[in-house]
């Protein structure tokens, strides 16, 4: 009982490599997300799993069955499109039951199944409406019901929430996760929204330029990114470029524009390597006059923004990009004026030294 195996999958369009040697296994019943900026190849992988594209090299296996040569209409997958692609000329019930109609199931039975699914998505008795009469979130759920109607082993979702407004999107996240728990099948979810990926998924694969950068649980990806891209793409991060001057005991010292700074070294950096040290805004703290702390450096304050639970402080960075501090609002946020010289520090355990690599575009 294994789920989906991507075995050395490479997909090329002409000279363009959309997916480069992707190897991963998705467990049965897992909520798995592909996260990456647009054009990173995540949708291509999804289409390869659903059968609309054949990999140029490697193989896609579902339940240990090689899917090569099996069309999308014969795979045990169901795809939910970014724009949902509901059939506007059919009623809601006909939409949901379309897959059953294809399978030659009688009208009465189709009706019954559609009503069951309408109950599952909390739209009971709305089967005779036209799709255009539904709201965005309702259509979303109809699309899910239509895909679930064919009882797929894998549900593939291609950024299905991107068209919704923020409130609805957040609501649908919880809803999707709940539906997945209820039906218990594998969900593969494509998104460029890290919030969606991190909140819903059991595991996330971060992709960039056709390459899978890291596959891990959300917290692991956030706290322990594997590459510079992941570190800069997932969440806010402050990069400090430099050379490794010392590497020992799982820590590395990087000589940056702000002096030598120390962080964890999980990627085997050696002395002399080009590296980037990443420190999250919430891991940076104002020194408040303390001198006995590690990783202490100073810079000019550029501006301060108060956001409620956090106050953001921007310091002059090594490049045009400023260093960002998130100061938790414990009722006592220190006031910093622009132009003021401030000292900040961070714990070496909360900083990650990674091999030099491309950062995600802001």
């Amino acid at each position, binding site marked *: 009982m294994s789920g989906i195996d991507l075995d050395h999958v490479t997909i090329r369009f002409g000279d363009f490599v959309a997916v480069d040697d992707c190897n991963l296994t998705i467990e049965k019943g897992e909520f798995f997300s592909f996260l990456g900026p647009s054009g990173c190849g995540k949708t291509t992988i999804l289409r390869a799993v659903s059968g609309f594209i054949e990999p140029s090299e490697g193989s896609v296996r579902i339940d240990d069955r090689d899917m090569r040569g099996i*069309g999308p209409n014969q795979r045990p997958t*169901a*795809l939910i*499109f970014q*724009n949902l*692609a*509901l*059939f506007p000329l059919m009623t809601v019930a006909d939409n949901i039951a*379309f897959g059953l*109609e294809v399978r030659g199931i009688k009208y009465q039975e189709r009706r019954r199944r559609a009503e069951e699914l309408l109950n599952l998505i909390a739209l009971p008795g709305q089967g005779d409406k036209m799709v255009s009469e539904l709201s965005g979130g309702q259509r979303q759920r109809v699309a899910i019901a239509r895909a679930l109607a064919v009882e797929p082993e894998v549900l593939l979702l291609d950024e299905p929430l991107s068209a919704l407004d923020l409130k609805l999107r957040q609501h649908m996240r919880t809803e999707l996760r709940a539906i997945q728990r209820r039906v218990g099948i594998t969900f593969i979810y494509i998104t460029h929204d890290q919030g969606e990926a991190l909140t819903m998924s059991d595991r996330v694969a971060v992709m960039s330029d056709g390459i899978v950068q890291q596959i891990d649980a959300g917290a692991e990806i956030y706290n322990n990114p594997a590459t510079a891209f992941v570190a800069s793409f997932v969440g806010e991060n402050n990069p400090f470029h430099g050379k490794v001057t010392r590497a020992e005991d799982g820590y590395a010292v990087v000589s940056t524009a702000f002096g030598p700074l120390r962080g964890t070294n999980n990627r085997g950096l050696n002395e002399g390597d080009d590296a980037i040290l990443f420190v999250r805004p919430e891991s940076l703290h104002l020194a408040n006059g303390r001198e006995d702390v590690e990783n202490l450096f100073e810079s000019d304050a550029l501006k301060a923004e108060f956001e409620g639970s956090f106050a953001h402080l921007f310091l002059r960075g090594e490049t045009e990009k400023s260093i960002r501090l998130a100061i938790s609002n414990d009722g006592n946020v220190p006031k910093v004026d622009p132009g003021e010289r401030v000292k900040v520090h961070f714990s070496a355990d909360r900083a990650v030294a990674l091999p030099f690599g491309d950062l995600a575009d802001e």
Partner: protein
Amino acid sequence: MNNKTEDGPVELAQMKISPGMGSISDDKPAPKPDVPAPAPSTGSSMPAITPGMGSGNTPQPAITPKIGGAPAAPATAPPPASVGGTNLNITIANPDKLPSLPPGSHELKLVIEQEKPKTDADSGLGFWEIFIALVAALTIAPFAQAQAGKWFSNINAIDFVRRNGIVISLYLIVFSAGWIIFMIVLPQLYMLDFSFRFNLSPSEVGGANDVYTLKNYRYLLFGRPGDEDLLNWLHLQVFVKTIFASVMVTVIDFALCYPLAYYMAQSVKGGNQRLLFLCLLLPFWVNEILRAFAFKLIFAEQGILNDVMIGIGLWDTPFDFFRANVALYTGLTYAYLLLMIFPLYNAIESLDHNQVEAARDLGSPWWRIHYRVVLPHAKPGIVSGCTMVFMLSAGALAAPNILGGPSSLWFTQIIYQWYNTGGNWPQGSAYAFVLLIACIVFVRIMMRVFKVSLGEIAQR
């Protein structure tokens, strides 16, 4: 003129007096020197021939382009002296109907039409009219100027004008009104009116005989009164055949165009799509007649197609493509191909390809995707294309004329003959109107069957 008659008055001819005509054409010796001799004129001596006329028709004398139905007013030919400077030109349609008259004096009856001499007053504007118009315009102008500001603000108060500006709105209104009234409504109304009238000679128009009649429509159904058959089978058959053949042409066009339109709209992109469009469009730069004659060459007995087929041994005697209507169908199908492709393409192109993929992903075989997703979406385009192809096929003239078989007749050809060789415009109008109404009714029925509204067609 007081000579004794032997056989009663003989209606000889209608006479037209028109100023400035040539001298009396006089080929035959006149029965009586007093009376200008009836002379057969080669131009109009044939009775109006229409291929569709029933077998029981007796040839009627046709004198001048109109078949006279007016009672013959007894008239004596004016003595030569009274003719004066006016020349008489008498033509007789059926000289053989004239009784051979023995020598002697006879009373001849002539129907005389006199064309109104044109007066100068009718011919354009004279000095005084222009002068008066100018004076009037100059008198009104100051008042108009004083009122202009008010008019302007009144016009501007109309929402439509405010949105589009005065020039554009004026253009839109004048153009669309002009289009609808002068290009569509008036000609059709005129033809409708025409179809209910007798075929009168110009002098009788507006006279006592100018009354409405159903005879032109009756003729299509029953033929001439006194025919052997009850119904005018020949014309009715041609009518039904034309409608049926147009339906067939429409169906063939749809069958040919749908896959192509789908391919162009959903499958092929970029350069190849443009190439396909060019391939479709370029042949239509060749005019219709040329294309039809090219088909005639290809389908001829010694044409390329027969040569090739005989050459590769598919058949050994030349096949008559014209008799089998293959040439006609091909020509018509080809002529209206684009009118089917483009509405279809437009309709299918607007279909979100994800819907096709979604249907496929849900397990649908290709035919069900078309039946359940693509066809319903493209329905307005399909109806629009089919309507155009059907209407134009039913109204086609060139292709049936050139490519039609010896035995096949298109209804438009009959209409054309009524207008042209038959010289019977009211009859032609009636036929044309029947065709128009039949086509509209047929299309509306089809729209009802396929549940498409006119508005949906207009969207495409």
